[in-house]
């Protein structure tokens, strides 16, 4: 498995507990519009991602992330 594929799998596993609508999650899935997460869900989810990868995603960086694919790329960069 490539590095990105592995990150992608771990991110998607963390999305599942919050995927209340049980939609199919892909690179283009949007957190606000498709998963319909409110700001509190986002905060909980981001905390889980940070702990899983031992990184910090600042609110400034979060503002730039709309889709699952963008998050996977950002995590890849942040974990170096």
């Amino acid at each position, binding site marked *: 498995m490539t590095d990105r594929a592995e990150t992608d799998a771990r991110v998607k596993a963390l999305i599942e507990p919050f995927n209340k609508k049980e939609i199919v999650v892909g690179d283009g899935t949007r957190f606000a519009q498709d998963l319909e997460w*409110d*700001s*509190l869900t986002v*905060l909980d989810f981001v*905390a889980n991602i*940070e*702990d899983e990868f*031992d*990184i*910090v995603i*600042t*609110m*400034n960086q979060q503002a730039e992330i709309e889709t699952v694919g963008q998050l996977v790329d950002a995590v890849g960069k942040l974990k170096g």
Partner: protein
Amino acid sequence: MTTNALRQAADEPPSGGREADLFSKFDPLIQTREQLLSTGITDPFGLVMEEVVSPTVAICNGRKTILLGTYNYMGMTFDPDVIAAGKKALDEFGSGTTGSRVLNGTYVGHRAVEDALKDFYAMDHAMVFSTGYQANLGIISTMAGKDDYIILDIDSHASIYDGCALGNAQIVPFRHNDVDALEKRLKRLPPEAGKLVVLEGVYSMLGDIAPLKEMVAVSKAAGAMVLVDEAHSMGFIGEHGRGVAEAQGVIDDIDLIIGTFSKSVGTVGGFCVSNHPKFEILRLVCRPYVFTASLPPSVVATAATSIRKLMHGKAKRDHLWVNSQKLHAGLKALGFTLGTEQPQSAIIAVIMPDLERGAAMWEALLHVGLYVNLARPPATPANMTLLRCSLCAEHSAQQVDEILGMFESAGRKTGVIA
């Protein structure tokens, strides 16, 4: 234009030179409000006090009402010495300064209130802003620059978030009151980067306090500076009323304390106190301090008098704790769900099942003569609807009994308790 033509125009897309209605983003909120008010309920956000009888009683809609939703914790608003100081300053210095603190807006009264704060906190420096909101806005946005990090509790007050938004630092939130979450994030940040940890002594929605002792320790270990907003604890918590940091024995490790005059002090204004040797430079670089008019002379005179009296307020502090414990125990016994297991401050939050029943309960209380704060998202954590009770040192034991009776009848009437 006929009504029909207007209606048609409103339905058309905003093109062809027609303006896009910037108000349409508020439509969901307008609808929620209309829905709530269409049930015939009194607007919880439109209350007017016709007369204020004392720190604990006002006349609302012609009815004598016990006030249990103000931040007048120490009941200083009608203190005779405070009133006299305000009147004297109004006579001698006029109604306002019409100027910035750094130009023509610093009178002897502004220096006097800063001296009172230095004495109250036993600290070297004090800087007074026109509101508490501006104190957070100014200090947070000025202290943390572009490459610095602000690490803050998720449940921080709007003024803290707005201070972050006004500046351009990197913002890192952590789970409410979670020492471990704070420590982990601090350790993940670049060791050499500037870091400001922003905490509150009392969180005003649920009335819970922060584990400052542990949080300050992990922050200092990571080389961070620490700011604590003690707005809701000043005058009440700690041996000298200096706040939660004093009560937990870590006040000497706090770099910046933010506070307000609009709670225990009983007027309006904000401040920052600090022991940092370079603190005074902030007066020249802090925009929400520089680019606004200073407080009126009467306001700083009332504040200075009130702060000096709060230094000797032990009896009042003790009575306020008794009130807080009595109300908390009484509401719990009635079957209400409260924000904290034990009373931790002068704020007791009663958790409502939803906004509709919260508003109904709020109105039922008002009808029997009790005012509390209705708090709803986004001000509240976890989308909760709260009836927030804030006690005053001037509430008598008898008033607390009356309050409990009112909660009992309103709670049964609205079905919030069985």
